[in-house]
């Protein structure tokens, strides 16, 4: 047998074994959540908890915190992604084109939140959010400002990889010499070429925002995770079901988006 074919077979055995073993470790808590939420009082199985979770009327009447949390997180996800893209894509492109000397600085700032744990950010953001509340009100939606900072490093990396893969300068110069203005260059030249990077920056942001708890909890605002945690004190099974549902939802979003990213053509989410 040729060595390459033998290696390919060895690799595929290795792959199956490792993915199966690590997969088992990851599946166990998920399976346990399913098991836990389907227990019937006298033994046996029931789907009552899940029926409650998907009964909009019951949730609305008996678990208003969950509804508030879901709506707040949906809004936060959208606003965070929009601010992140409008802040990063033009800035990073512009820096590459016109201000290469600032590239290190922008990178440093974007990666800085990695050295500042969310809990530390909360300590420092408390006075800033006192001003946000003063100007814009106490709505949970303004947490998006802090969330953009949290997603900066991940979004920066994804977008930087995308921009590095194309020749921004040549593309922009070509477009400019054909008479395109800067907005056209951004919208019609750069964006379509980095759409995969834009999408992956967006999923990372969505996943991070859907899972965020620290800042919302310590500022006493609402989001999905805060609601699930509150629910945990009241109804363990329902809280675990809600947590699992949120996890599955996030997973579906990620898989769907990963398919969109490799699709023929993808449109950027509309500005809201």
């Amino acid at each position, binding site marked *: 047998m040729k060595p390459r074919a033998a*290696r390919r077979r060895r690799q595929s055995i*290795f*792959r199956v074994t*490792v*993915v199966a073993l*690590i997969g088992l470790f*990851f599946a*166990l*808590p*998920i399976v*346990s959540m399913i098991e836990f*939420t389907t227990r019937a009082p006298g033994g046996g199985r029931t789907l009552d908890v899940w029926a409650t979770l998907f009964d909009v009327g019951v949730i609305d009447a008996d678990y208003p915190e969950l509804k508030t949390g879901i709506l707040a997180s949906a809004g936060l996800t959208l606003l965070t992604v929009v601010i992140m893209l409008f*802040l*990063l894509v*033009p*800035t990073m492109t*512009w820096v590459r084109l*016109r*201000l290469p000397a*600032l590239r290190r600085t922008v990178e440093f*700032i974007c990666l800085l939140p*990695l*050295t*500042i*744990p*969310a*809990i*530390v*950010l*909360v*300590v*420092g*953001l*408390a006075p*800033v959010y006192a001003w946000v509340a003063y100007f814009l009100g106490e709505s949970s939606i303004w947490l998006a400002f802090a969330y*953009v*900072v949290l997603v*900066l490093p991940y979004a920066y990396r994804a977008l930087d*990889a995308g921009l*590095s893969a194309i020749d921004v300068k040549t593309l922009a110069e070509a477009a400019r010499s054909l008479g395109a203005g800067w907005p056209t260059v951004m919208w019609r030249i750069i964006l379509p070429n980095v759409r995969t990077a834009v999408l992956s920056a967006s999923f*990372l942001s969505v*996943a991070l925002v*859907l*899972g*965020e*708890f*620290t800042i919302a*909890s*310590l500022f006493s605002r609402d989001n999905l*995770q805060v609601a*699930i945690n509150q629910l*945990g004190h009241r109804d363990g099974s329902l809280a*675990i079901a809600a*947590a*699992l549902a949120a996890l599955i939802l*996030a*997973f579906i979003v*990620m*898989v769907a988006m990963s398919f969109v990213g*490799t699709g023929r053509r993808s449109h950027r989410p509309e500005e809201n």
Partner: protein
Amino acid sequence: MGALLGVVPFFAYTTIFLGIPTLIVVFGAFLDGSGRPTLGNLSALAQPQIVSAFVHSTVLSAVTAVLGAVFGALLTYAVSTAREGGLLRRLVTSLCGVLAQFGGVTLAFAFLATVGAQGFITLWLQKHGIDLAGSTWLYEPYKGLVLVYTYFQIPLMLIVFLPAVEGLRPQWREATESLGGSTWDYWRHVAGPILAPSFAGAMLLLFTNAFSAYATAFALISQGSPIIPLQIGGTLSSEVILGQENVGKAMALGMVAIVAVVMTLYAVLQRRTTKWLGP
């Protein structure tokens, strides 16, 4: 000068939501309740529960970074041998993307459902004569938290490390083979040294990830604050003792100092990685 206008929004935004909070922590750590300069907050860090929280956090993060890096690297390599754009790769990458960010409350609840007092595994073990229900191991930093944290460290490792592993070009392996090298030679002399800086860098990133985690431990532990993020959270949400208003900021500064050291090392490694694996 006109070109600089293009970056004003970015710098304005990051100044307000990143720069100012950082300065508040740094300066606040050296101010007392009425705004006078003091070193009292820093000396308050010597309190036994704060010292032990720092130690717990550091050890917990280091152990889970190593575990996450080793298992995560195995998983990464296994996935990288699958067809690019194939279902397995897409599925695992998406799953890891979710699980790495999804720590927190969900994860804590998942483990309560698994090995909590009424958990699936706990009940199963009980049936087989092993009683864990009375034990508090799940809430202890060196036992339960290690297990729970590893659960989000492995997926993060995959996300951080996959680009480096994908950077290995098949030609290098072919070149090794055509020179008579074995698989071992390839790993020992080619792929290993090339991946080493990225591996170490990813491990440092995992350390800071665990070190910063708040939500998982918060949702899991209802009594006491064994790790430093919980200690800081406590100073924000409860009544603070007079004269200790800014001890939280001093603890926060301590966390930043530890993370900064780790991230400096990371930056050095990163520079080496881009030199070797760069375009």
